[in-house]
């Protein structure tokens, strides 16, 4: 039979070959002019007059920070970088260091309570080891509002196989992460993807696939009649996601958004673990960053939930010399069991500190990729908010106070960057509200119960 579903492979375009961009191999800044054509045909004139959409990226790492090495002493623009923030020096001008906010949910479930509280303003629902959240994560709140016009409502990625996901739907369900860069590449830029202006033969199989999905959806509607209330919700969610896929396929039948910076990236390189079996987390992060940047630049999605490292699971960082008594330890184990002072003169919990610094260096390179990627007159980061956060402030105590929050990007000029803002114990959900409003989503409030917030943080707003 004909392999009808699949389009013939086109040769890579010259632009693909030009894709030197890569955190993996030396970032190249590419500033491209805005073409006149962009401003109309694809309908990308946004409410604020900007021609670029606003994007949100959630970057979550595991197991907190060490508060005593984290918080700058000074506030405002002239703060001195602390030990753990120093690896972010390359993106300092794009960053707001936000401290002093408390995550106001009960700390019933170590690691889970804090990240659920930070990202959703609500607490996790824990039954046994089954974890759901009482409210959706910020990325999914935004995806519900902003995701409808892109091919993917949102993307979930994790650079490690057990990284999990911090993207939670209003139903409490966690969306799984893509953990393979090759699979992510195929999903975004494989079959069916077209560059702006690229000619194509109409593919009749796309319409047929939509017909099949439509039939499936009708069956789902029939099935749901016979079910109890909870199962009905599950089938409805499945139905929603089937309709979403229909919509994604329909998008492929239309002309792609005319974004000049969009290019088909090269197939991601394979990143191998070292001889001790430790993942090259920074390398993996670079490969994922390249793909995510292009996913946003091509307007395949505007919302990304990215997990750098999981909580609790014992990630071993490829950092030499952090063995404890000759025994290598996972990050979580170290946060709890590393001696405060081991007499080496290297500072309190210096091994854990080295790990946090490694993570911050990776985050710095991740953000730098966005800052160096040209879009219009400025950079992709100008039209993006990246929230960097974690699942504890002091991981040894699983604490929720004075939570580590980093913001990057200006959301089309609506946010200030380049300073340290310190609150005195205010509600962290106000930061989420600030981000949502900067993204053009005028939420009346964010969070529930003690975390309920109705005011954004004015100091962060431009």
């Amino acid at each position: 039979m004909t392999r009808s579903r699949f389009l013939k492979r086109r040769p890579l375009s010259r632009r693909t070959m030009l894709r030197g961009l890569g955190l993996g191999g030396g970032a190249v800044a590419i500033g491209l002019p805005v073409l006149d054509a962009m401003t109309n045909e694809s309908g990308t004139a946004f409410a604020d007059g900007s021609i670029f959409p606003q994007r949100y990226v959630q970057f979550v790492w595991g197991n907190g920070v060490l508060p005593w090495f984290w918080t700058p002493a000074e506030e405002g623009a002239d703060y001195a970088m602390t030990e753990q923030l120093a690896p972010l020096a390359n993106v300092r001008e794009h960053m707001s260091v936000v401290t002093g906010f408390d995550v106001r949910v009960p700390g019933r479930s170590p690691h889970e309570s804090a990240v659920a509280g930070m990202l959703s303003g609500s607490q996790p629902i824990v039954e046994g080891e089954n974890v759901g959240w009482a409210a959706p994560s910020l990325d999914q709140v935004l995806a519900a509002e902003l995701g409808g016009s892109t091919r993917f409502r949102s993307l979930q990625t994790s650079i490690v196989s057990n990284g999990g996901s911090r993207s939670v739907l209003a139903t409490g369900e966690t969306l799984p992460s893509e953990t393979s860069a090759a699979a992510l590449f195929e999903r975004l830029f494989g079959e069916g993807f077209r560059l702006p202006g690229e000619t194509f033969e109409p593919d009749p199989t796309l319409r047929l696939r939509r017909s099949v999905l439509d039939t499936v959806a009708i069956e789902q509607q029939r099935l749901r009649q016979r079910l109890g209330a909870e199962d009905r919700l599950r089938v409805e969610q499945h139905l929603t996601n089937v309709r979403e896929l229909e919509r994604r396929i329909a998008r492929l039948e239309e002309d792609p958004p005319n974004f000049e910076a969009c290019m088909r990236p090269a197939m991601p390189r394979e990143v191998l673990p070292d001889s001790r079996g430790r993942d090259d987390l920074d390398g993996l992060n670079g490969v994922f960053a390249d793909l995510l940047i292009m996913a946003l630049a091509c307007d395949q999605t505007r919302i990304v939930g990215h997990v750098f490292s999981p909580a609790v699971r014992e990630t071993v960082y490829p950092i030499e010399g952090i063995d404890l008594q000759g025994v290598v330890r996972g990050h979580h184990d170290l946060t709890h069991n590393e001696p405060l002072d081991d007499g080496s003169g290297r500072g309190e919990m210096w091994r854990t500190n080295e790990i946090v610094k490694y993570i911050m260096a990776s985050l710095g390179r991740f953000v730098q990729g966005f800052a160096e990627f040209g879009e219009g007159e400025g950079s992709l980061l100008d039209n993006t908010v990246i929230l960097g956060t974690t699942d504890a402030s002091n991981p040894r105590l699983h604490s929720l106070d004075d939570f580590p929050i980093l913001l990057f990007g200006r959301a089309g000029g609506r946010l200030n960057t380049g300073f340290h803002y310190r609150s005195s114990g205010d509600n962290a959900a106000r930061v989420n509200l600030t981000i949502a409003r900067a993204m053009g989503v005028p939420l009346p409030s964010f969070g529930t119960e003690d975390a309920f917030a109705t005011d954004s943080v004015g100091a962060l707003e431009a």
Partner: protein
Amino acid sequence: MVALGCDGTIGESTAPIDTPAAAEYVPEAARLRRLTQEQYLISVEDALRPLIGDAELRLPSSLEPDRRAEGLVAIGATEGSVSPRGVEQYEDASYLLAEQLVAVWPDCGPASGEEPVVDNTCASESLRPLGRTLFRRPLTGQELRAAVRLSAQAAETLGDFRAGLAYGVASLLQSPSFLFRTESGEAVGEGRSLTRWELVTRLSFFLWNRPPTTELLDAASRGDLNNEAQYAALVDSMLGDERAIGGVRAVFSDMLELDKLDDLRKDRGTFVHMSPEVGPAAREETLRLVTWLYENDSDYRTIFTTRTTFIDRTLASIYGVAAPAREGFAMHEHAPDSQRAGILGHVSSLALHSHVAASSATLRGIFVRRNLLCGEIPPPPPDVDTSIPEPQPGALTLRDRVRRHLEEPSCASCHRQMDPLGLGLENFDALGRFRTLDNGARIDASGNVDGEVFRTPAEFGDVLAESETTLECAARTFFRVAHGRHEGAGEALVIEQLVDAFRQGDYSIRGLMRAVVVHPSFRTLPAEGQP
């Protein structure tokens, strides 16, 4: 500081067996169950293999991940939906499979390039039996018409009958009736029971971990499952079939979390024996042991005491014993005085519930308490420093370093549920190698299971084998896997009866599986209008 409730109750919210109020049996509703990844792959292989003969069958490599809830993947399958990514994966998989199928199937219909390209009779005659296999029940007229219509539409668009039929096949593979098992039931007299199709499906997935065969569907169609004697005979023949190995492996894999071994990580600097092969090999060891015990109709309790096991070269090097003469697994007998007895001496238990380089009395204790004794342990409260002091003179062994767990009342209320168990396995390091010294100090591996004292890992196994709680937990676990949920308060009587049957059958694994499926609860649902 408040100590969270570790009052030692077994089986969490479920009422203890001897509560008089629980004597009345109240059935609970069943939930929609998504096929696990393994069940999906077995299902499509079972459905397609007879149609494509010896042709190679490429199976999808990524599917919606399984999730574990309330301790079991079988319960996780009854929660959550299909994610946006999962819908894409099932769609991709459906076309991957459908295109392979129509390359060699069916025998009827116009060949490629032949006109007319639409043949609804052939499409209908082909999709009807395939649909019955995939949906585990006959297709409704509406469902069959929809699939045939899609096939015709696609055939016209693409100008090819078979290319069109692939879309009909793909629609069946994406259908919720394939991806989910419904257990809605039908009214029977005053109450409600699984339909014959739901019953044969639940039976087949529990006993074989695979969908019902054509023969089983035929038996259901004839009404054989409603006749007690015929049903019992069918169950016995299924338990005697080699496919029952699939059911046994699934139950134990779920109970012992063996699926997690795919992601086993150990520091290769510390453990020269560590490699990506260790996790899968460790799972295979445990599954081969339980399979062997099943086939010999052995006593369930043997899994805690036997010195017989099955190892390959990877495991032999970790255990420090002679490797099998050939590639692959071979039976191995540990020495009679070996401390390695039963599954607690397996790498699968020891390595999975340890840190990357160090053993953990807490993780191992939680494993034994939750998975083998069906106890519950809440997470540690917030704002507690849970650090374990580093080894130092006078406190070199893990037992000495975690002493505080059992001395401070706030820690002890929970930790006495796990540490006395986990410390009993300290003779095995984080990979599962035997040792007598920890940081140069002699290991004391004594402990107790709720007061029953042991001195060594082997004695630990003996104590578990003698424990009523262990047996009751096995009955609960088998029930939970079969039903996809925990037993309710109104089902205490069911558990009691399963334990009785287990005992009367000399604790045979086969006997317990049989007891679960012949018990009336296996097909009973709450009457309409009940919660």
